[in-house]
């Protein structure tokens, strides 16, 4: 599988992630879908790093993993806050600011 295929795979993950974020109600699944987006980007980085024989892509993927870890920490913090407030992990529960 060449670079095109890898890029396509990465883009597929990205699209599925976007779809998940848009369509799912459960907050955790929304977070998981966001992780899919990260994974798609990571595949892209590594694919080009492999193609061009340079390490920038890999280094970026390492940063990406760090950012994802941060996102998980904040996201789960939000989840706990939401759950404590609404007794639900449903994103629809957080609509207090909606007119």
């Amino acid at each position, binding site marked *: *599988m060449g670079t*095109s*295929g*890898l*890029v*396509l*795979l990465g*883009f*597929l*993950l990205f*699209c*599925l*992630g976007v*779809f*998940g974020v*848009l*369509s799912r*109600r*459960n907050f*955790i*699944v929304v*977070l*998981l*879908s966001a*992780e*899919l987006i990260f*994974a798609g980007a*990571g595949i892209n980085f*590594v694919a080009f*790093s*492999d193609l*061009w*024989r*340079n*390490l*920038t892509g*890999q*280094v970026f*993927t*390492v*940063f990406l*993993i*760090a*950012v*994802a*870890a*941060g*996102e998980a*920490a*904040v996201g*789960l*913090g939000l*989840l*706990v*806050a939401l*759950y404590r*407030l609404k007794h*639900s*992990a*449903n994103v629809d529960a957080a609509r207090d600011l909606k007119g």
Partner: protein
Amino acid sequence: MAFLWILLAAFIAACALGVVLSRSPITSAVSLLAGFLGVGILYLCLRAEFVAAAQVLVYAGGIMVLYLIGVMFTDSEALRLTRQAHFQAWPAFFLVLALFLWMGHRLYRSEFTAEPPVLRVAVAAGADQEASAKTALAERAGLAKESNPRQVSVALFRDFLYPFEAASVLLTVAVLGGVFLAKKEV
């Protein structure tokens, strides 16, 4: 070999589909975990060994544990009985499908040359810069004889030191924020 590649890609794609489409959050989490392992193998095949290890160690071994605990924490019968998708699921589906078809087609059709853009820019700019770019490349080639973790660490601590430090600050802030969010009485 191509067959194995396609198998791996199909596995990752199937896991991603499982994340998005499965009804129960825990199945989502488990299939995301499986998908991450697949991505790890993919990285390994692309000679990005350090990234693969980090992927499995941090992502699969660390972050996914937190997510699983999160799922268990919030899991309840009532949640399982509610609808899992928004009313906006169908529009989102068509939108994303369109995006995927259009961009995917373009991405798949575009040509990816095996030369980094830096060199092409250098060639365009002139011979002098071309020489310096070539020495940079040669240096990289020398580095390429080293093991991948060593290469990545050299790149991380030499070329990307400031981003690296920024990432560590970001992580600290994220952890503090997470604790703050989870701890404080809202």
